[in-house]
């Protein structure tokens, strides 16, 4: 790089020497003040040009020239007429600037042409404020340093203002970082005041005057360059603007050579890690929320956030300190309240959001901004304060059918000066908002309806298939079983009644009621057993119930037996009372019966339970 720029310089000088006729009009710059700020990695040049038309014709264009090696690295250029007197910087609208033809000028000069707000007639003066930002013009020298060395960079410029016009008076001041200055080109009227280096003033210079200077100084600035930055701005009309930024960051300063020792870095960070940067500061819009900071292998836990009503500051620390030449990748994302950024005008909505990265002092070599508009947006247009490459895409995200329109803006070599607002206009009807919830609701609705239909409806393929018939039969069997069960339960209940009557007997000694109770239960039981019979026959007729019917039969038989036993017991007891035998006597007599009754009862209950389980 250095060599090539030297060649450039030579070429430039040669070209200037060979310069034939000035192809530009008779403007004269009565006063030029240039201030170059190199405290960060970006060389920011501010010029105040006082233009006087000394020719006869009125002029509507003004040419700005830069040496090619600077012009190639020009990231940002804005020219504004400054009309107010003195320091009142009431900058008006930026003038339109375009890259002009060479017009016979040598290749080593790049020319930009500025359209003046109104033609400058003879004798009129105009003051122009020019702001230009250059990247990559601070060349690290030496190009490779070890961990312990300091980071030196070199700036090449001209002490005299390179202009196609004659300059009457000019001065240059270079603001250097507050650190060591290795060397600088010395002329007679060169002054170093603190960290400010001054050249000039020079009087009455010809057009295309050029005197190269080189300043070699230590820079402690972070040379953080995003090789590629993809910002995705997703607008949701539910109240959120989600910004996701993917950074590929590299340290573009002098490359690290040799070992990296963590020990030195930790123990003596200042001399032995000065060339590295650990932090980047992102200044997010106020009310930013749900901020995250991660990379492709997970969350990065080293970040700090401060927020107040004016701004949100996010101090992010990459996973490792970045030395010269080291790269890293990370993603930051945050949500912004929609109301701060989305506005309506003339039936359209527009998103007003900043273009560049929120990270301070970061140069972006390739910036891609993707504005994802809600599904169903129409009539999309974009206004940007500077030229960008535009295109449109479709993105499919959560439950999209038609996809969301994406406006893609691309720009190379972006500096913080580009952090201006862009406007994306589109039409969107609020009804579209409801489409996705409705879709979800109907989706789940259909799902549940299908489930309901599936469980309720009979969807067997053939009504005569054996499995279907078997199922029907089985249902019948189960129904019959239930009936049987209920009848047996009833029987058991009547048995209980019988027992109760016996107890009453022992208390009251009323034999007649007891007998009556027996009679009634007897008839009841008979009815019940009559009811049981057809059911039993029914069960036996089914082959599928073959493994149940024996049990049921057994149940019925056992139940009968129990009935008989109970009756017998009842009779014995009643007889005993009739014969007025003692309680003990009766008890002794029925003891064996009682045992059998209990055993039977137990068996019946077991059987019932077995049937229950079916």
């Amino acid at each position, binding site marked *: 790089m250095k060599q090539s720029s030297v060649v450039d310089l030579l070429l430039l000088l040669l070209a200037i020497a060979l310069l034939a006729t000035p192809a530009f009009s008779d403007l004269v710059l009565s006063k030029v003040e240039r201030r170059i700020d190199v405290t960060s990695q970006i060389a920011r040049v501010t010029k105040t040009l006082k233009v006087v038309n000394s020719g006869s014709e009125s002029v509507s264009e003004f040419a700005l020239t830069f040496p090619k090696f600077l012009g190639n690295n020009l990231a940002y250029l804005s020219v504004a007429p400054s009309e107010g007197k003195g320091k009142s910087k009431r900058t008006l609208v930026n003038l339109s600037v375009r890259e002009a033809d060479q017009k016979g000028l040598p290749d080593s000069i790049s020319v930009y042409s500025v359209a003046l707000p109104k033609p400058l007639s003879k004798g009129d003066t105009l003051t122009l404020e020019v702001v230009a930002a250059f990247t990559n013009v601070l060349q690290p020298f030496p190009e490779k340093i070890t961990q312990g060395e300091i980071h030196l960079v070199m700036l090449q410029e001209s002490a005299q203002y390179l202009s196609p016009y004659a300059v009457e008076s000019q001065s240059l001041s270079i603001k250097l970082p507050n650190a060591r200055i290795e060397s600088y080109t010395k002329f007679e009227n060169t002054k170093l005041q603190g960290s400010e280096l001054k050249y000039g003033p020079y009087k009455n210079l010809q057009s295309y005057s050029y005197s190269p200077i080189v300043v070699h100084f230590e820079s402690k600035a972070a040379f953080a360059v995003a090789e590629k930055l993809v910002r995705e701005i997703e607008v949701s009309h539910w109240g959120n603007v989600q910004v996701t930024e993917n950074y590929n960051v590299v340290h573009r300063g002098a490359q690290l050579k*040799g070992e*990296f020792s963590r020990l030195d870095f930790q123990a003596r960070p200042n001399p032995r890690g000065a060339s590295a940067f650990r932090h980047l500061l992102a200044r997010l819009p106020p009310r930013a929320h749900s901020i995250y900071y991660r990379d492709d*292998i997970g969350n990065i836990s080293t970040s700090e956030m401060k927020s107040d009503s004016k701004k949100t500051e996010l101090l992010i620390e990459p996973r490792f300190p970045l030395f010269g*030449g080291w790269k890293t990748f990370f993603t930051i994302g945050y949500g912004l309240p929609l109301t701060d950024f989305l506005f309506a005008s003339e039936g359209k909505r527009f998103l007003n959001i900043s273009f560049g990265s929120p990270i301070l002092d970061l140069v972006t070599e390739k910036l891609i901004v993707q504005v994802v508009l809600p599904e169903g947006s129409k009539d999309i247009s974009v206004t940007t304060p500077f030229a960008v490459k535009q295109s449109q895409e479709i993105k499919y995200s959560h439950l999209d059918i038609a996809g969301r329109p994406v406006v893609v803006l691309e720009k190379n070599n972006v500096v913080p000066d580009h952090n201006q607002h862009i406007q994306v206009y589109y039409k969107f009807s609020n009804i579209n908002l409801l489409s996705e919830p409705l879709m979800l609701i109907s989706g789940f609705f259909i799902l549940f309806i299908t489930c309901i239909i599936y469980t309720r409806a009979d969807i067997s393929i053939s009504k005569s298939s054996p499995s279907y018939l078997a199922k029907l039969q089985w249902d019948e069997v189960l129904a019959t079983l239930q009936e049987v069960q209920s009848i047996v339960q009833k029987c058991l209940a009547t048995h209980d009644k019988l027992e109760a009557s016996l107890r009453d007997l022992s208390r009251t000694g009323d034999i007649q009621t007891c007998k009556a109770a027996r009679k009634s239960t007897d008839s009841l039981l008979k009815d019940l057993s009559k009811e049981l019979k057809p059911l039993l026959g029914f069960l036996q007729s089914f082959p599928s119930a073959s493994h149940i019917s024996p049990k049921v039969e057994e149940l019925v038989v056992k139940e009968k037996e129990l009935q008989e036993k109970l009756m017998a017991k009842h009779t014995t007891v009643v007889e005993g009372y009739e014969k007025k035998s003692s309680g003990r006597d009766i*008890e002794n007599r029925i003891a064996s019966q009682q045992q059998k009754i209990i055993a039977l009862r*137990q068996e019946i209950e077991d059987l019932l339970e077995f049937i229950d389980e079916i």
Partner: protein
Amino acid sequence: MVIKYESVIHEFDPYFNYRVTQFLSKNGIYEFWNWFDDRTWYPLGRVIGGTVYPGLTLTAGTIWWGLNSLNIPLSVETVCVFTAPVFSAFASWATYLLTKEVKGSGAGLAAAALLAMVPSYISRSVAGSYDNEAVAIFALIFTFYLYIKTLNTGSLFYATLNALAYFYMVCSWGGYTFIINLIPMHVLLCIVTGRYSPRLYIAYAPLVVLGTLLAALVPVVGFNAVLTSEHFASFLVFIIIHVVALVYYIKGILSPKMFKVAVTLVVSIGMVVCFIVVAILVALVASSPTGGWSGRSLSLLDPTYASKYIPIIASVSEHQPPTWPSYFMDINVLAFLVPAGIIACFSPLSDASSFVVLYIVMSVYFSGVMVRLMLVLAPAACIMSGIALSQAFDVFTGSIKYQLGASSNSTDDAEDNTSTNNAPKDDVSAGKTDKGEEIVKERSSKKGKKKEREPADKPSVKAKIKKKALVLPLEASIVALLLLIMLGAFYVIHCVWAAAEAYSAPSIVLTSQSRDGLHVFDDFRESYAWLSHNTDVDDKVASWWDYGYQTTAMANRTVIVDNNTWNNTHIATVGTAMSSPEKAAWEIFNSLDVKYVLVVFGGLIGYPSDDINKFLWMVRIGGGVFPHIKEADYLRDGQYRIDSEATPTMLNSLMYKLSYYRFVETDGKGYDRVRRTEIGKKHFKLTHFEEVFTSHHWMVRLYKLKPPRNRIRGKAKKLKSKTSSGLSSKSAKKNPWV
């Protein structure tokens, strides 16, 4: 875990699975089967498609694909992170089904609730633990459920499903051999105990035929499904069950006399045939070096096998036998409930309950051999405890209900009952003697007792008793209930603690609680990120194999060895390099085209599982292949130490040097916080390696091999460099291996 840490994939193997899933989602299924991975096992490479169990990756890939086709843009990572928790829910459901088949839905619910919390399974099912086991445990339980279901219903439909579930299990995890050995064992048990039934046949035969065919479809299993010894048991039982089925059939059509004759005839011929077949089989199997058993299976059968012959298997902490506290840690109170569950399973013993008993017995044995198989034990323990708990609750709540009902009837009744039941044991025995002809079961004897004690007791009360077995006194059952609930509460507390503290740490991000809040150690990702962004994409990184998967997945760099320890020699080469002195190591690494060496060092912050602590395994594994590395050279009187007493071989090994390079300058003494001692050799220089990166807490240190021209110059000025480099080369001279 996601809340405490972040949505991140855990540990080592999950990173590999994650990488495979990424590949799958990017390139599709056909590319996946043909994937030859050249970024690992350099220079050999690895055929991923043919050597992984694809179940997990395919599952996650399908989920991802399904979500994305619905336009729900989840990243592959998110899907991978949450696969395990989702499947643990399925596993819980499967447990419910299985236990329900065995002991009813009450036990099923209890078992599912227990499984949902059991620490052992939580360790594998936390979000981010994207490992084979995550889906395999579900597949395992579900296969068992379908087996039991088939056994209970005799439905061919379930039998087919069973084979499919088995197929899924084979896809998912090498542990499928557990199924294919456990089920035949159960079948055999059923046959031997005379429980053979057509249902058993339907449950087993289709599983073996279909299952084996399907298993052979999985590339990693392939013909192993019929060739290795792990599967022979199933075939043997398959033959037996056919013989038994035939015998039952013949028995059905022949008269008893004819049958006897036929049996003697068949048995005599059969014996001869069997003998020949077995002889052939044995000869075949014996001709293969390990007798057809894979190393891990062998170490299962013989717990000492691995430590004797294959240090690489023994070196994995997961393959060590567990300690007693780890049982308590992993299954907690379940350990006490399991015996109760087993008893409950025996009354009454059904096919299904005999299966779970067999399952728990086998898994207890296996978990005793390998910590990792604790995972197989956990569901079994949950099922058993679920059964035990639900039975206990049944009894207690039942008796309370009865008591309350009885007391509302008549107060003396309740009193009576409490008095009779104060000594339930006596009652039971008395009842038994009294009613010898009764058909077992306490309840009958209970009833006998009732009658015998109070013959004139009111029948209404007796009806209420029904066959409530052990009617316990009210107070006792309430206290027991409370105790059970407390037990459950302790279990829950323990599980929550284990889930929060012990098992949810992703191991690549460490945290420590300090006075000023949580301190995060994110060194691994720091250095992997450094590797991935600041080295050439084709650079090779050598590290101990533990970090292989992570390096390929997170740093996307080629590694020499990784966690798929398929090539012992290769690992031994790296182990040898790590345990050799610098120069020899440099030569080994250079021959492998290695550019960076990664070591993990915990001495600064006290991270115990670092490379110095693993170093002996490197020596052992290296020494197993390259005999010039001798373990004894690294031990002083049988003790592994790194302080001034350490052997010169140890102090000159590459691992020692890379770990402690310039370590002494941190505190002036070189105090190692893991080993709690000052290091032996403090000041030395590296001649063939240079430090290129060390992470914030020094946990990961990366070194670059110096280019060979340095070596040549060094050779030319051999004498000079020798004298100048001082201590290190002098002691290196003493080392016989230089």
